[in-house]
């Protein structure tokens, strides 16, 4: 796959068809393999390649926000010449899992999670101190979206 840089029909099925209901049984990949009519080893190998290629982040659980721990969406308005330096500082924090540059006055957006709010507050305070910037802290109030995974349209 990486050699040809092509996504096969099998990859598409793996990417699109198994985003939820991962089998909770001793040999989950064997169950998936059975659905696809291929071998268990092949399923594992394809997923490993897709992960290596960066197309798959992981095979695992997605936790709802603010149930197990707490999270927030935060933003900074960074001077363009400092953006990479500040982004690197933020990405290095283990509490941060998403960090994006976006087209706006608030140009750096990141999601931070922690076991509790006090921990999260300390992280945001540290970011504010180390960058000298004000942190826009926008924790979720209500989730209106039902997560059915991400439907890919192959064209």
């Amino acid at each position, binding site marked *: 796959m990486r050699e040809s840089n092509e996504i096969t029909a099998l990859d598409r099925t793996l*990417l699109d068809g198994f*985003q939820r209901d*991962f089998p*909770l049984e*001793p*040999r*989950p990949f064997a169950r998936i393999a059975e659905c696809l009519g291929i071998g268990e080893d092949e399923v594992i190998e394809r*997923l490993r390649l897709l992960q290596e290629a*960066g197309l*798959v*982040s*992981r095979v*695992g*659980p*997605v*936790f*709802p*926000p*603010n*149930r*197990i*721990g707490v*999270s927030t*969406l935060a933003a900074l308005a960074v001077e363009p010449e400092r953006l990479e330096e500040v982004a690197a500082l*933020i*990405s*290095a*924090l283990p509490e941060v*899992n*998403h*960090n*994006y*540059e*976006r*087209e706006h006055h*608030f140009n750096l*957006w990141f999601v931070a*999670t922690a*076991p509790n709010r006090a*921990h999260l*507050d300390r*992280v945001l305070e540290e*970011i*504010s101190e180390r960058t000298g910037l*004000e942190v826009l*802290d*926008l*924790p*979720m*109030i*209500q*989730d*209106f*979206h*039902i*997560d059915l*995974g*991400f*439907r*890919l349209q192959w064209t």
Partner: protein
Amino acid sequence: MDMKVYPNPLDCDASAPQIQSELDDPVQKALIKAIEGGLPLTARPYALIGERLGICEAEVIGRIQLLFDNDLIKRMGVVVRHGQLGYKANAMVVWDIPDERVGEIGRCFGRFPFVTLCYQRPRCLPQWRYNLFTMIHGRGHDEVRARIETMADHCALQDKQYEVLFSRRCFKQRGARYVSLDGEPGQSE
């Protein structure tokens, strides 16, 4: 510097007794830590996790089922990186919705298949006036903009107060770590 913490109404929910007691259980906590970065890609992943935690395979499966039963896992499976799959235009669209309509509009927006996240968040005046956040994926800026129009029209939003924040660069994207954060906050990885 203003580092005010905004009251989050859901905090009450997050500390509901049942959930709290479950997370006080060190094995359950260790299990979450073991799976939050993804399951091992091996024939018997639950057995391997159990080995690491000192519990049996069946207990691992039972405990993951318990997390589902308590709505502590939203879904489990392949988590794709859409940015790598041709969905180059990932736009965070932020809307200024009258507070009394935010529930109705949020539910309406949340039903579109191309809306992958739809959250109400606090305003932070004067810097930030938007209270509804939607993540919209599309294969180009035009497609995303057309989808925004569709949403606003379909949900009868006359006063379209919104901004589109297209992503320019992704510096980091991985699953959240809720419990794998031993030690002091903010220590570099």
